[in-house]
């Protein structure tokens, strides 16, 4: 299936979890937050939340600003 991670298309196996999507970008788990289709997925449920075809995953962290 195809999902979008931070704006880029990714082909991933069925059953891919949020945790696995995060691991494609970073090993980091603290200081990072994830939204799937504009809903926050809390860190404790990353490993048990499966993605669906066409999901939009946003993986954010803090940067210099403000």
């Amino acid at each position, binding site marked *: 299936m195809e999902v979008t991670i931070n704006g880029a298309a990714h082909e991933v196996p069925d059953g891919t979890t949020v945790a696995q999507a995060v691991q494609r970008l970073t090993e980091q788990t603290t200081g990072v937050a*994830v*939204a799937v289709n504009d809903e926050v997925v809390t860190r404790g449920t990353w490993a048990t939340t499966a993605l669906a075809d066409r999901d939009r995953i946003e993986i*954010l962290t*803090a940067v210099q*600003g*403000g």
Partner: protein
Amino acid sequence: MDELIIAGEKFSSRLIMGTGGAPSLEVLDQALVASGTELTTVAMRRLDPAARGSVLDVLRERRIKVLPNTAGCFTAGEAVLTARLAREALGTAWVKLEVINDERTLLPDPIETFDAAERLVAEGFVVLPYIGDDPALARRLEQAGCAAVMPLGAPIGSGLGIRNPHNIELIVESASVPVILDAGIGTASDAALAMELGCDAVLLATAVTRAQRPDQMASAMRLAVQAGRLARQAGRIPRRRYAEASSPMTP
């Protein structure tokens, strides 16, 4: 210096720093230390796998409380989602709510800001909204449960100082939450003026991070905020049209 209290939390520094615009994390680190700040903003952005070092490491090392902002949001919906993500990533319910109207002026959108503030307060966030120098909006946001109000002095990064000191005074007069002058500070006298007008704190970034010597400007801002606060509390003399002799007039 008397303490600044926001949402029950005490700060001995009345200078809140932003982290935007610094050429490197090392320069930022030195400026933050020189500023004496205890509360500093960060933005939330897509994770860049190539990025090395994090502003969060600097803040953690210096024991500075992190204040995530919603910079870059144009709608209440975007701002609420960004605040939720910041809470998840950083473990803080504090948020500097910033919803801009257009990219040229970066002026805050009052309608979207108010909408987002109501929703975030209802979700238990400690909301510090960035707003224009509008006394009516400041009052409405306080009534909506915001922990502070943050009127601008001038557009973000403009360094134009405080364009409407009268409105800032009006906001201060009627507010019972802290008033934090946010945006527009260009140099130390602007920060001192904000405090003399009765603001409880000053938030600035560009004036320090893009100064030729950021750490030195950070020290200047720290002293200016302290001087302005002291002057405000000391009570300035009234302005007079003509001279008033300070020496006896008879020989």
